[in-house]
């Protein structure tokens, strides 16, 4: 009762043994065109998982390029589809890295490790696909059950009197205190790891410092930007925030010789501090 992938729905060749000749009929999603393969991405994954296509034969950089091109054309409505692909893309990139590593002689520890790594990647890919496919069952069941009506009616008045009278002890001020507690932003609790690592440094906070300093000065050396700081983590975070700001086209930098002086210049024509809120989100995990 394994739900078949959506792409195959309604086609006679819905089983995992779908002949490759049927690929023209399936999938309106991302298609790849490679020397050894031409068809929808899903089918490619399926073939890879069945070891019918050796991953090394597939030009992963080409898949990646086509994939990025496909993502660019996706509208905002299709964000879900894009996020779906992120896992697959990450896995493919992992495979690509594994494939690019020097393979060495036929039997050596590295090659074995590499094979193991590749199996792990397959496993991850398969696991991801399994959950993706079973999620269609969840969707169907949730949708079906959404339509069901159950009895949920108010108690008759005569029975309501059986409800024990409410004991109320809160003053208005207690109540307000409770409200504040309820409104306090709820972070999902995190474990303090300060005792294990150096205290966490926020790239966002460091970016705010960089923006302030640089916007005032216009031009600064990185050396000036970190003068007086002894904590390595802070310096690293400040450097990462410079890279992030560069990504946002907020600044440009110049370095005349390797390891030479790094000169930063504030170039943002429009900059709102709101940009800071999302800056460095990649590092949040």
């Amino acid at each position, binding site marked *: 009762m394994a739900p078949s992938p959506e792409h195959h729905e309604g086609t006679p060749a819905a089983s995992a043994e779908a002949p490759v000749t049927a690929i023209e009929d399936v999938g309106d999603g991302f298609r790849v065109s490679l020397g050894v393969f031409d068809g929808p991405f899903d089918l490619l994954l399926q073939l890879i998982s069945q070891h019918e296509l050796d991953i090394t034969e597939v030009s992963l950089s080409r898949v990646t390029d086509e994939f990025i091109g496909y993502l660019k054309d996706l509208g905002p409505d299709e964000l879900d589809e894009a996020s779906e692909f992120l896992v697959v893309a990450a896995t493919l990139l992992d495979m690509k890295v594994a494939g690019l590593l020097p393979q060495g002689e036929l039997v050596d520890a590295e090659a074995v490790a590499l094979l193991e790594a590749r199996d792990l990647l397959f496993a991850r890919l398969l696991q991801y696909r399994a959950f993706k496919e079973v999620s269609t069952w969840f969707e169907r069941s949730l949708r079906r059950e959404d339509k069901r*009506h*159950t*009895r*949920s*009616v*108010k*108690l*008759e008045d*005569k*029975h*309501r009197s*059986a*409800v*024990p*009278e*409410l*004991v*109320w002890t*809160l*003053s*208005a*001020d207690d*109540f*307000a205190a*409770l*409200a*504040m*507690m*309820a*409104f306090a*932003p*709820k972070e999902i609790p995190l474990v303090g790891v300060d005792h294990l690592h150096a205290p966490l440094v926020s790239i966002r906070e460091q970016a705010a410092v960089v923006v302030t300093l640089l916007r005032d000065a216009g031009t600064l050396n990185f050396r000036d930007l970190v003068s007086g700081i002894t904590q390595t983590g802070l310096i690293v975070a400040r450097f990462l925030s410079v890279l992030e700001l560069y990504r946002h086209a907020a600044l440009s930098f110049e370095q005349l010789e390797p390891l030479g002086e790094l000169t930063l210049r504030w170039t943002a024509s429009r900059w709102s501090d709101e940009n800071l*809120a999302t800056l460095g989100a990649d590092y949040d995990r």
Partner: protein
Amino acid sequence: MTDENDTAEPPARPQDAASVIRRVEAILLVVDEPQSLVSLATAVGSPVPAVRQAVESLVADYDGETGGPRRGFELREVGGGWRLYVREEHDDLVREYVSGQAPSRLSQAALETLAVIAYKQPITRSQIASIRAVNVDSVVRTLLGRGLITELFADPDTGALNYGTTDALLVNLGINSLDELPPISPLLDDGSTGFDAEIIR
């Protein structure tokens, strides 16, 4: 209650007695208030005489007069409408059950939800849930049952019900109006990024 007919024609319903009875039973199962024959007829898409007959046969059926067992509930006409009621002989059973279910104090979760509703009303359940970061359905039911909150109106776009507090809450808090709720906005200033501060009194 959809009293007006839409312009779209409702789907044709089978009109044999057994089908009408089943549809009437389905409607009776979910309604809070007694339903007149006319509104039942509208709901099930059958003429009033057929619905009257269905109701009469259900009454007899539930009373065990048609060969089946007498049921634990009955169909009674109250205030010009029909509704399912627990048979009177089981009232003490229900009362025991109800009193065993409801504690005399509100839980911390219920109190906090009540506070959220008090300060942000009118507010829908999903808005409450997103502030509380937990599911609030049963808590809202409890507060409704306690008469501390009430359904205000349905959102015109989504149909989601908006809730607000009642005078009973004011009485419990010993204040005369919502304006007398202690202000809490100044304390929300720090770190309240993205918070809709002006809604908070």
